[in-house]
């Protein structure tokens, strides 16, 4: 159909792009993780010191664990919010469906940073939430743990990633042929049984996709802990950031990044296989 010249012309730019901005940086990161820093200078000397440090220093493991816990909490919270929302929109919203769908999507157009600062204003000591609680005389002094805590990080990330969880679940629910629900009721299943025996199993691929989004994106997040996390809310990406910045230990930072990358890729791989097994087209 197409000439060889045309094929080359259209395939070279994306190939260049991918090599220059994806493959090359990954290769550099991988190489750095096996190098070292001596007297404040990067030396290209192959070694496993960085990985050894990762597994022997308990600090990294602790932050890793906290990061996983926060990511899991965010995933759970956004599933608990996103699934019922998607279910309502798909099955019960009627003519308001389009409007509500847009309302769910609109926050995605607002800058991540703006939303972060908004949470700061809400949760701070003299923020909207504390002011409101004191105005109602429910509390008498500002509550500190609202801001600069893992709680704040989970709250902010849940707010940001719930639409990402909502979308694939909504798509999965919309794809369920409605006669299946009638068939289920016809065979004696009430709404509850129909949900657990037909709707939920058929929405598992969407649910998995959404959960993967929320978990993977939370796992690598560094802005939320930076804005609202405080010292107790520090996550692994913040460690990487400081290693590449003030601490000037690029090799160790690269080693941590390689670990995060491996975890993320294996997670994506696993959930994709699970999704494939659970889809019935």
């Amino acid at each position: 159909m197409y000439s060889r010249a045309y094929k080359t012309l259209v395939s070279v730019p994306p190939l260049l792009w991918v090599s220059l901005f994806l493959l090359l940086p990954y290769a550099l990161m991988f190489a750095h993780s096996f190098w070292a820093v001596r007297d404040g200078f990067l030396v290209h000397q192959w070694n496993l010191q960085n990985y050894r440090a990762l597994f022997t220093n308990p600090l990294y493991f602790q932050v890793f664990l906290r990061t996983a816990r926060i990511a899991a909490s965010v995933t759970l919270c956004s599933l608990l919010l996103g699934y019922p929302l998607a279910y309502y929109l798909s099955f019960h919203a009627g003519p308001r469906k389009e409007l509500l769908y847009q309302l769910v999507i609109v926050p995605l157009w607002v800058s991540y940073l703006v939303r972060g600062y908004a949470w700061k204003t809400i949760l701070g000591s003299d923020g909207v939430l504390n002011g409101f609680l004191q105005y109602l005389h429910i509390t008498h002094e500002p509550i500190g743990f609202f801001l600069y805590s893992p709680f704040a990080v989970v709250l902010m990330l849940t707010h940001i990633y719930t639409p990402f969880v909502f979308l694939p679940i909504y798509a999965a629910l919309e794809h369920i042929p409605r006669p299946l629900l009638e068939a289920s009721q016809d065979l004696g299943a009430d709404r509850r049984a129909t949900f657990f025996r037909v709707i939920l199993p058929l929405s598992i691929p969407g649910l998995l996709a959404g959960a993967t989004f929320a978990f993977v994106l939370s796992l690598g997040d560094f802005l939320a802990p930076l804005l609202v996390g405080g010292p107790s809310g520090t996550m692994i990406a913040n460690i990487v950031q400081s290693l590449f910045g003030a601490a000037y230990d690029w090799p160790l930072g690269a080693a941590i990044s390689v670990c995060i990358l491996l975890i993320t890729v294996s997670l994506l791989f696993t959930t994709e296989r699970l999704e494939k097994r659970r889809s019935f087209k």
Partner: protein
Amino acid sequence: MSAAGAISPQNPPSGSAPLLEIREIAKRFGNAEVLKNISLQIAAGEFLTLLGESGSGKTTLLRLIAGFEQPTSGEIWMSDERLDTLPPYKRRVNTVFQNYALFPHLNVRENVAYGLRVKSTPKPEIAGRVEEALRMVKMISFADARPSTLSGGQQQRIALARALINRPQLLLLDEPLSALDANLRKEMQSELKALQREIGIAFLFVTHDQDEAMALSDRIALLRNGALEQVASPREIYSRPATAYTAEFIGQTNLLRGEVHNGVFRCGSLQWKTAEASGGALFSLRPEAIHLADSSFQLPDTVSFRGTIRQQVYAGASELLEIDCGGNQTLRARIPASGPLTGQHEFVFSADYAVPVTESPTAHASRAMGREPR
């Protein structure tokens, strides 16, 4: 005799109480009147077909019985239990859906077991009944297959087994054969009929295919624009159509419009004795009632006419002729295959086969329901 006469027994053939009784059901969607005052009874073990064009309301009526729609007015009763106020999952009817609606995440065995599982039937009983149901539809060897790997006909059988395993007294079938190709369709028709005779439960079958309705049904309920046009056995509805619409929808016919005067009906060059009252009248005459005069035998009340062959369509065992009888009158005749015909010929038919029909469907529909028009 009058157009509707005593034909179209609204009540099922057996003398016992009906299994299902539809009482003056009406259904509106917004401003659209989809069903108008439908009353119909189904006997235990009966094969009743709802026949009609798309938009006639036949599927809506089925969905009202299954419980997926609520009637605007009227009631549905099933053996002394009011059905229309129950949710679908409490009704003792089961449905075979148009596109089967098999659960894609369950295999054949799990699909068939679904109804028993939700009712918490003991596991050994489920296993036994699933096997029995799969044997009944000859699909036992596909028990572990996914529905998506099966052909249309196979999916059809699974949908049947899944519904029948619940042992309903009434099975609702919504155009179950319409997605199958012609050969498979004929095969499934006879299997379906045999199965219905064997298990002896009532079938309410929806179709737009009049041949299918004729082949399968004990009775046919013909729907038109949301009203019952005629309810009768296939033989009756074909040989004694009550309305012009019925006569034209089921099979082919010649509609002869004319005048009755002193007990004689006249239409163009044709005339015969009739019991119809004086005034305008309409008769239906099936093409196969018309014979070539020279091949003819003695017919009672014979009407004969001369006509010119306009067109001849060969159809294997028979030929369809278009006969110009003069005076702008054209009749269609179906005669045994007899070689090419041209020019003028003499034709005959028995006036007994000319059936008086009414043009007004509403007047007839209420008579068919066994009530006088209000």
